[in-house]
């Protein structure tokens, strides 16, 4: 059974204070590792897909990396508008993404 574990559950940062979110996954035959952003009262919004260990993708202040067991979402010099819940998901043989519980990020000005 596919499993995705995210840590920490919650993270408070000062504006400009860089940090990383962790996603540990267990899946048979990884087809994709996904990161989504979810704002309160909204559906998740796609950020990145990573397909193989060593792959990295960047978008503005966010960079996602992938190893054989984990993915990290690095946030560089965050701003208050980066406050949201960040969800990690993996898909394997069934093609159906399995989501973690998310990391709730608050960035204080």
């Amino acid at each position, binding site marked *: 059974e596919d499993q995705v574990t995210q840590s920490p559950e919650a993270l408070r940062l000062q504006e400009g204070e860089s940090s990383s979110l962790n996603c540990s996954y267990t899946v048979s035959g990884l087809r994709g590792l*996904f990161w989504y952003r979810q704002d309160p*009262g909204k*559906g*998740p*919004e796609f950020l990145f*897909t990573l397909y193989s260990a060593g792959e990295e993708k960047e978008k503005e202040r966010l960079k996602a990396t992938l190893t054989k067991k984990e993915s990290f979402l690095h946030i560089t010099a965050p701003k208050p508008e980066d406050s949201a819940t960040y*969800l990690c998901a993996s898909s394997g043989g069934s093609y*159906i993404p399995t*989501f973690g519980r998310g990391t709730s990020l608050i960035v204080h000005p």
Partner: protein
Amino acid sequence: GAGVSQSPRYKVAKRGQDVALRCDPISGHVSLFWYQQALGQGPEFLTYFQNEAQLDKSGLPSDRFFAERPEGSVSTLKIQRTQQEDSAVYLCASSFPVEGGDTGELFFGEGSRLTVL
């Protein structure tokens, strides 16, 4: 429409009542997913359609839950005899499969929040 549309956005039901939640996916998207998201939790898979075929319904929590997509476009999630534990946000997502059959990026609607009293 430009995105995935779900209705109603909010539904309050009395325990034992039947409810129907509608999802309008992005035009041309073959794959459609339903997820359930409880407060403070991640989305939990319910069921998956490819066109009109329901390929996986392993996540439906009981036989009170039923989903259909008869013409391969709009989908309805029906919950019969609602219970308090059914209270959650129900998210619909659609995608256009990428090469190799992978579901690719999911586009989510804003969800239907169900509260069962």
